[in-house]
C-alpha cells in the first residue's frame, strides 16, 4: 500500500495531475446550462468513436484501387464483427454530422458566438466543413461504383471554379480520369490529413473554452457589452460558478454514452450500407447518390434553375463560408436571448425546414428517370381494346414511362 501511494505521489508530482489537470477539470462554469450544452461534447465523442473504429477498419481495409472493393466485401461478410464495425463507423459518421449541426444551431440560437467567443465560432465553421469532407471522402472509400461516380461528381463540382476549375478537378482525381491514383489520394485525405486537422482544431476549440469560458445561458434584457463582459463574467463565476467536473460534465458524459449506445444499437439493427457493383467507371447501370446527410446538396443540384447553376455551384459555397465566418463580427454584441432575437430563431427554423425538405426530395429523386418502371397492364389503362393495349406497350417501349406517370406507375420526371 505504501509503495503504491508513493508511486502515486511520484506520478502526481511529475505529471502535474493535482497542479495542472485537476484545476482544468474543475474550472468554474456558469450554472444552469443543463441539457442544451451537451451536443458539442457528444459530437466530440462521435469523433473519438470514428477515430477508434476507423483505426480498426484500416487493419482490414486494402487502400488500393484493385483490392479495396474485395477487402470491403471481406470486412462486411467474413471478418469477425467486421459488419458491426463498418456499421458503427457509418452510423458514427451520421451521428457526428447530426450533432455538429445541432451544436451549431444551439450556438447560433443562443448567440454564443458573440464577444469574446468569435474564434470558437470560426474554428467551429472549419470543423463543420471538415466533418462534411470526412463524410464525403468516407463514402468514396467504399470504392464501389457509387464511390467512383461520387468522385466524378465531386470533380465536376470543383470544375465550375473559374479559370483553375479543370486543374482542381484533375488534382482531386489524381489525373485525367479515375484510376489507381484516385483512391490513394482519397484514402490519405480521409485517414491522415482531415483527421489530423480535425483533432488539431478540436484541441484549439477546447482551448478557447478554457480561455474565454463557456457561454452562460442567455437571459433576455442582459446584452453583451464587450467593454464590461469579461469582468462581469468573472464576477458571476466567482459568485455562482460551479466546477465543470463533476457538476456539468456528468450530463456530457451521460448524453455521450447514450449517443454511442444508440449508434451501436442502430449498427446492430441495420448494419452497414450495402456495397454496389465493383468500381469500374465502365459500369454505367448505377444510380449514384450520396449518403443521407449529403442528399440535400444532391437535391439542390437537380432543382436549381439550370441557367444559374454553374455559378451557384461555385459562388454558393464561397458565400456560405464568408457569411458564416463574418457572423460573429457582424453581430458581435447585444442581446443573446432567442426571445429577443426572433428573426434568428425564424431563420434557423427556415434552414431546418429547407434542408429537411431537400433531404426528403433527395430521398425520392423524382427528377430521375425511373429505369425500373414495369410495363403497363391492361388493368392500369382501364381497357382491353387492342389498340389501347398496343399504345400502352408503345408508351413503355419508347421509354415514356420512365418520366411520365400513368395512374401512379412510372417516373415523375415529367408531367403525369
Amino acid at each position, binding site marked *: 500500500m505504501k509503495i503504491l501511494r508513493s508511486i502515486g505521489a511520484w506520478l502526481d508530482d511529475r505529471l502535474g495531475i493535482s497542479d495542472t489537470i485537476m484545476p482544468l477539470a474543475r474550472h468554474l462554469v456558469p450554472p444552469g446550462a443543463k441539457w442544451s450544452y451537451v451536443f458539442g461534447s457528444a459530437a466530440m465523442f462521435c469523433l473519438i468513436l470514428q477515430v477508434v473504429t476507423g483505426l480498426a477498419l484500416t487493419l482490414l481495409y486494402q487502400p488500393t*484501387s*484493385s*483490392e479495396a*472493393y474485395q477487402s470491403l466485401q471481406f470486412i462486411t461478410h467474413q471478418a469477425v464483427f467486421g459488419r458491426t464495425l463498418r456499421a458503427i463507423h457509418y452510423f458514427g459518421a451520421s451521428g457526428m454530422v447530426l450533432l455538429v449541426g445541432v451544436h451549431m444551431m444551439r450556438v447560433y440560437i443562443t448567440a454564443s458566438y458573440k464577444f469574446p467567443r468569435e474564434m470558437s465560432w470560426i474554428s467551429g465553421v472549419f470543423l463543420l466543413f471538415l466533418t462534411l469532407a470526412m463524410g464525403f471522402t468516407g463514402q468514396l472509400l467504399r*470504392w464501389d461504383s457509387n464511390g*467512383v*461516380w461520387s468522385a*466524378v*461528381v465531386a*470533380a*465536376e*463540382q470543383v*470544375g*465550375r*471554379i*473559374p479559370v483553375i*476549375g*479543370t*486543374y482542381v*478537378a*484533375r*488534382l482531386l*482525381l*489524381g*489525373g*485525367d*480520369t479515375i*484510376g*489507381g*491514383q484516385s483512391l490513394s489520394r482519397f484514402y490519405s485525405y480521409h485517414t491522415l490529413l482531415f483527421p489530423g486537422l480535425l483533432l488539431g482544431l478540436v484541441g484549439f476549440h477546447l482551448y478557447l473554452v478554457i480561455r474565454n469560458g463557456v457561454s452562460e445561458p442567455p437571459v433576455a434584457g442582459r446584452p453583451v457589452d464587450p467593454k464590461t463582459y469579461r469582468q462581469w463574467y468573472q464576477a458571476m463565476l466567482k459568485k455562482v460558478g460551479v466546477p465543470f467536473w463533476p457538476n456539468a460534465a456528468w450530463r456530457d458524459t451521460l448524453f455521450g454514452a447514450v449517443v454511442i449506445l444508440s449508434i451501436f444499437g442502430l449498427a446492430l439493427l441495420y448494419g452497414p450500407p450495402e456495397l454496389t457493383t*465493383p*468500381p*469500374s*467507371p*465502365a*459500369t*454505367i*447501370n*448505377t*444510380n*449514384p*447518390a450520396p449518403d443521407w446527410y449529403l442528399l440535400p446538396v*444532391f437535391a439542390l*443540384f*437537380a432543382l*436549381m434553375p*439550370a441557367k444559374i*447553376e*454553374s*455559378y451557384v455551384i*461555385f459562388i454558393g459555397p464561397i458565400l456560405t463560408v464568408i457569411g458564416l465566418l463574418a457572423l460573429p463580427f457582424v453581430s458581435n454584441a447585444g442581446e443573446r436571448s432567442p426571445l429577443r432575437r426572433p428573426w434568428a430563431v425564424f431563420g434557423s427554423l427556415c434552414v431546418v425546414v429547407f434542408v429537411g425538405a431537400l433531404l426528403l426530395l433527395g430521398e425520392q429523386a423524382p*427528377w*430521375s*428517370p425511373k*429505369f425500373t418502371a414495369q410495363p403497363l397492364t391492361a388493368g392500369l389503362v382501364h381497357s382491353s381494346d387492342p389498340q389501347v393495349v398496343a399504345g400502352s406497350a408503345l408508351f413503355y417501349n*419508347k*421509354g415514356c414511362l*420512365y*418520366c411520365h406517370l400513368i395512374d401512379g406507375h412510372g417516373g415523375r420526371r*415529367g408531367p403525369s
Partner: protein
Amino acid sequence: MSETDNTAPGPTAEDEPRRDFLVKLSLGLGGVAALAVGVPVVSALLAPLLQADPQTWRKVGTLADFDIGSTHLVKFENANPVAWSGVSSESAAWLRRDSATAFTAFSVNCAHLGCPVRWEPGAGLFMCPCHGGIYYKDGSVAAGPPPRGLTQYHIRISGHDVELLTAPIPITDITAS
C-alpha cells in the same frame, strides 16, 4: 554545469548582437530545412498537375461488330493505368455507327455533374440517373440541368478495327451555359 551557471555573469549588452545573429540563424536555417523538405512533399500533392497524362488509340471492336445505325456501349482501358488500378482504369463510351465509314462516340459522362448516361434505344434518348439530364440522339440537351451537350471521342478506322482516342473525363466549366 548548474553550479557554474549560478556563478556565471548575467547577459550583458555585448551579448546582444551575438544573440540577435543566432536567433536569425536558427529561424533562417529552419526555413531552409522546411523549404527543402517541402519541395518533394508539395510535389507529391501536386503530382497530377506536374505530369501530363498521355492519350492513346484503343481498339473498341471491329467493323463487323457494329451494324449501321446501332448504338453500343464500348469499354476500353485508359491511356496510362497504374499496376494497382484494377477495374477502376476502365472507361466506357456510347459508340454509334452512322454509315459504313462514319462513327460517333459520346462520353458516358453527363455534362451536368458527370454521372453515367444510358442510351434508351426505344426513346432514342440518353438519360442520366442522377439529376434527370436528358439528351437527344445527337448528344444535344433535350431536358434537365446539363448546360451543354455530351462530349464526343475521336474515332478512326484502322483496317477492320474501330479505334477510339482516350480522353480526360470531360469537366464542364463555368463558361458552358
